[in-house]
């Protein structure tokens, strides 16, 4: 049985999918790629055990917003990271209402790797998609502020 963490990439850019697939495979992740939102939804239904979904927001036909809405009907737990370009802030705000783990700007792949590892680690530790201990975080912010 594979112990690799599974990531589903959903994007409408074929070359980017290929690049991300190769990059994350080399980092010892098990990678699934889907070209577009509709294919991404089909793939999620057949691979419900993925540890992370990384999705573009602006895609033709089925947008990233529609993808997260439908995936949230199937799973509340899977962390969802949006790997997105500029100019989609309204969509990002809307997407955040459905539980986004993080937003990473294209083409920051190094940042995406960092966020992906953190999201999977947090998810496997049974953490919610938000800060686990708001009081500790609050205290840390107070200390930094003062």
């Amino acid at each position, binding site marked *: 049985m594979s112990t690799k963490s599974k990531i589903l990439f959903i994007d409408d850019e074929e070359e980017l999918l290929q690049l991300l697939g190769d990059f994350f495979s080399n980092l010892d992740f098990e990678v699934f790629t889907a070209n577009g939102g509709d294919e991404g939804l089909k793939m999620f239904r057949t691979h419900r055990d993925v540890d992370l979904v990384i999705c573009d927001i602006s895609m033709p036909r089925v947008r990233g917003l529609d993808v997260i809405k439908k995936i949230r009907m199937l799973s509340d737990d899977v962390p969802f990271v949006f790997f997105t370009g500029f100019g989609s*802030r309204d969509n*990002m*705000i809307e997407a*955040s*209402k*459905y*539980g*986004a*783990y*993080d*937003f990473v700007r294209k083409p920051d792949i190094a940042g995406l790797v960092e*966020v992906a590892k953190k999201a999977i680690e947090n998810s496997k530790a049974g953490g*919610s*998609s*938000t*800060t686990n201990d*708001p*009081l500790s*975080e*609050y*205290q840390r*912010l*107070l*200390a930094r*502020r*003062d």
Partner: protein
Amino acid sequence: MSYERVLNPSIVAVFGHPSSTDALRKLYGRGNLIATTYDIDERLGHGMVERMQAVKKGQDIFRFKTKDQRLKAYFPLDAQVTSLTENEITFMTTEELPYYSVVKVSVPLDLYAVIVPSLKKLSPNIHGHHYMGLICGVESFEYNTLRKLVNHIIDNGIEEWSNDSFDLGDPKTIAEIEARPEEDALDEPQENKRPDRVERHKSKNKLAKL
């Protein structure tokens, strides 16, 4: 001026939100934000006060009653006024505003409006939101100026303006305005009929949400 500069070093705590702290920090550009899926409860509330007191040890802590004026918060907001009458204002803004909150319009004159569900059909704003506000709390002087402004817009069409560029002349009382015979305006030569236009800057109107 950014929200960050206005409000720092305040901390924003968002309760009952499904997204993560990191996501909301990036989304709203606030480093001092905490988000949690939990709704705020007594434990969290007490915990936050206790921690603040612990950090603030040796310093004065101020508590305000709920009706204290100092509890009011002002958020500057860019908006585009789309219609204006003596009683109501409609405007577009990129920010989502809750119904029945109060906005203060600072240009071209100070007035307050309560945002209400629109009583008329407002065109959709693809860049944000389109709201209707009922003008309230206007003093007689501002009401007078507002009436003149509406008349000015009717005569001159809608253009953007700023405080510096909009000049309504010396204030007059309502009695003076009502006493002014309409014939005066009709008798004026055509070139003098419209008030002198002053240079108008392309600045957006400013509203402040209370």
